[in-house]
């Protein structure tokens, strides 16, 4: 066997970087009261600025898989928290989720158009802005052990806006395809097929799993391990057939929730495995983003981010009272939705690999927005949850 020293040394940088990011996260959290994920993102941004992160296609594919797997774990957790029945007993939650998503889409698209972006890019920007990062939101909420209406609503709206974002993104790409091919059928088919196959993959894995776990009388650690492997399996399966691994993981989470009474509870956040993969995810995604090269680019990023948050806050505040909470908590829910989904970048990556040239064009604009919200989003979310009084107080006895 040939000792491939070169390749090994090329990868050694990752654990060192992750360790540095972890240390930075602890300092940020304990010393400064800043969410850990902000520090992880900062570490990713700094590392990509300092070092050439260019890797071989094989390494890039492996890293991308790992990132999708990590994100899949978060979506699984989110799916596990989603109570579909709540959306029926309180339909205003669903209504506020749809309103919040559509308003965000409209406002961001309008700002992009007003700032001189072409329609195709404005559509993609709008679609990607809709999604809140489940990873950042759950991380912040779990780090501070949040519990309350703002947390509960933000997580449900996050699931709704992620789903709508994927649909809008497919719609935007479909629109582009329509322009290119002139076939409406192909565009619609594309969106529906991707949605159906993604959910189908989740169901395929999700149905036999509880049966297996029950037969094995799996304990907490066993259930956690098997869930993680199931998420890995759907990630690979969906990537293999080029559909959304994230929707599949979300579906899997929702299905497992239905069986929670029969199974031992999995470790929160997948225990140390979840911590490690989250660390990797935030560093990796941030290392892919690049600072806007011009002042105009930065201004656009800030403006889009501000418009996005304002749209979310206005919509959630408008539906607050009718959905059973105060206007203030409604607005704070919108603010908690600030973290921009890290899968915006993964979606772009995916769209590019799926052969849509459009994504490349909007990459610099969206990358600017991602980098601003990578750092600011979790801070806003933390701020919202603290103002709502839903974080654990530090009490000393």
């Amino acid at each position, binding site marked *: 066997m040939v000792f491939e020293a070169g390749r090994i040394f090329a990868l050694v940088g990752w654990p060192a970087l992750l360790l540095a990011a972890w240390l930075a996260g602890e300092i940020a959290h304990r010393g400064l009261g800043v969410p850990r994920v902000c520090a992880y993102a900062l570490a990713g941004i700094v590392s990509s600025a300092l070092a050439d992160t260019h890797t071989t296609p094989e390494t890039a594919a492996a890293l991308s898989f790992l990132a999708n797997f990590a994100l899949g774990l978060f979506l699984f957790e989110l799916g*596990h*928290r*989603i*109570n579909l029945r*709540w959306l029926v*007993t*309180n339909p205003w939650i669903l209504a506020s989720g749809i309103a919040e998503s559509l308003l965000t889409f409209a406002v961001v698209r309008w700002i992009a158009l007003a700032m001189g972006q072409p329609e195709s890019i404005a559509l993609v920007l709008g679609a990607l802005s809709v999604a809140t990062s489940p990873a950042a939101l759950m991380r912040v909420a779990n780090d501070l*052990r949040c*519990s*309350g*209406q703002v947390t*509960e609503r933000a997580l*449900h709206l996050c699931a709704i806006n992620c789903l709508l974002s994927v649909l809008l993104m497919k719609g935007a790409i479909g629109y582009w395809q329509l322009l290119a091919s002139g076939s409406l059928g192909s565009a619609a088919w594309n969106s529906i097929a991707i949605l159906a196959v993604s959910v189908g993959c989740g169901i395929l894995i999700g149905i036999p799993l509880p049966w297996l776990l029950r037969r094995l009388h799996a304990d907490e650690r066993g259930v956690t391990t098997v869930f993680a492997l199931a998420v890995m399996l759907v990630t690979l399966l969906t990537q293999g057939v080029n559909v959304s691994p994230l929707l599949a993981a979300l579906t899997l989470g929702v299905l497992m*929730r239905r069986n*929670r*009474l*029969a*199974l*031992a*509870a999995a470790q929160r956040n997948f225990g140390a495995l979840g911590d490690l993969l989250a660390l990797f995810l935030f560093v990796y995604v941030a290392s892919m983003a690049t600072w806007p090269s011009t002042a105009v680019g930065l201004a656009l990023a800030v403006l889009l981010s501000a418009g996005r948050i304002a749209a979310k806050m206005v919509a959630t505040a408008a539906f607050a009272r009718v*959905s*059973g*909470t*105060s206007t203030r*908590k409604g607005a704070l829910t919108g603010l908690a939705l600030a973290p921009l989904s890290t899968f915006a970048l993964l979606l772009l990556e995916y769209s590019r690999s799926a052969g849509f040239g459009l994504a490349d064009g909007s990459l610099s604009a969206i990358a600017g927005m991602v980098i601003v919200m990578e750092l600011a989003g979790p801070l806003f979310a933390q701020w919202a949850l603290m103002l709502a*009084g*839903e974080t*654990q*107080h530090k*009490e000393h*006895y």
Partner: protein
Amino acid sequence: MPLETFHASGALSMGIELELQLVGQHDRDLASAATDLLELTRRKPFPGDIKPEMTDSMIEVATDIHVRHDALLSQLEAMRDTLLDSAGKLNVSLCGGGTHPFQHWYERRIFSAPRFQQLSGLYGYLAKQFTVFGQHVHIGMPDADSALRVLHTLGRYVPHFIALSASSPFSQGSDTLFDSARLNSVFAFPLSGRAPFALEWHHFEHDYFANMEATGIVRSMKDFYWDIRPKPEYGTIELRVCDTPLTVGRAAEIAVYLQALCSSILAGEEAGPVEDDYLVYTYNRFQACRFGLDGLLVHPRTHDTVTLRDDIDATLARLEPHARLLGSTQALDSLRHMISADGNDACRLRTVHARTHNLLAVVDEAVAAFAQ
């Protein structure tokens, strides 16, 4: 602040306070939802009283004053339905039960109100450990001396109420082997236990309360966490040993059992209390907490040993004439059926756990029972 005058109230009128658990939908752990639930329920008139409790995963509801079982039960059901409606809008579940089976006490948040923050400062971790859920029953007394006489005569029956209401077999993730683990959290407080033996109100007021007040330890009756305490401002005695049952129906049955017992005591059917009755008090109380209906009681006078199940059954049979007069025959029959057939709520929860080996399923059972 001197002790309030005892305002005599309608004899044998009754009222119930219930502390309820607020439980999250996704993990069935306690949820910090009291503030949101209170805000939402106050938008419309609430059919009773509702207020916050020590930590923000609990709320307390109270009925008006009632004389009859049917009216008491209707109000409890109306309050429950209103609460369930609001809780549904907030993705929160409500349930009874004296403890939450697996919550971690250190994760609880003290409700943000000055009184609770002050108690938390005084009692430290005991305040958070006090995230336990009880039922308090008030019975109206014709005068202060009768209140004290009934209070001390009831001492012998305190284990009955513990065993009938026991619904806290699990705590902090384990089976405690107790039917009522909740009361162990109450014992930790320095002013818990039984009321001092005084049968005349002026002795109680001047020889005990005034002296205690002079020590600076207490300021009002609220500072005593006794098993039964007089409540002079309402003109009642308040029984505080019960776990919150899983259903409001059981809560009402327990209240009218106490009402019938008080009726019998006021009618002079019981021997007057003596201080030596309390020699067996702590032991009998432990038996009820630990073994529930299977606990062994030592009679304070005869020193005979009898199971709580038999003693309750005999008492219920003896109270039949009073129940007829008070309109609570059906409720007491239901209690007799429970002790001979299904067992108390602790049994019910343990059965679910034995079947599922899952504490989430135990909470689910409690949630389903409350909505029944």
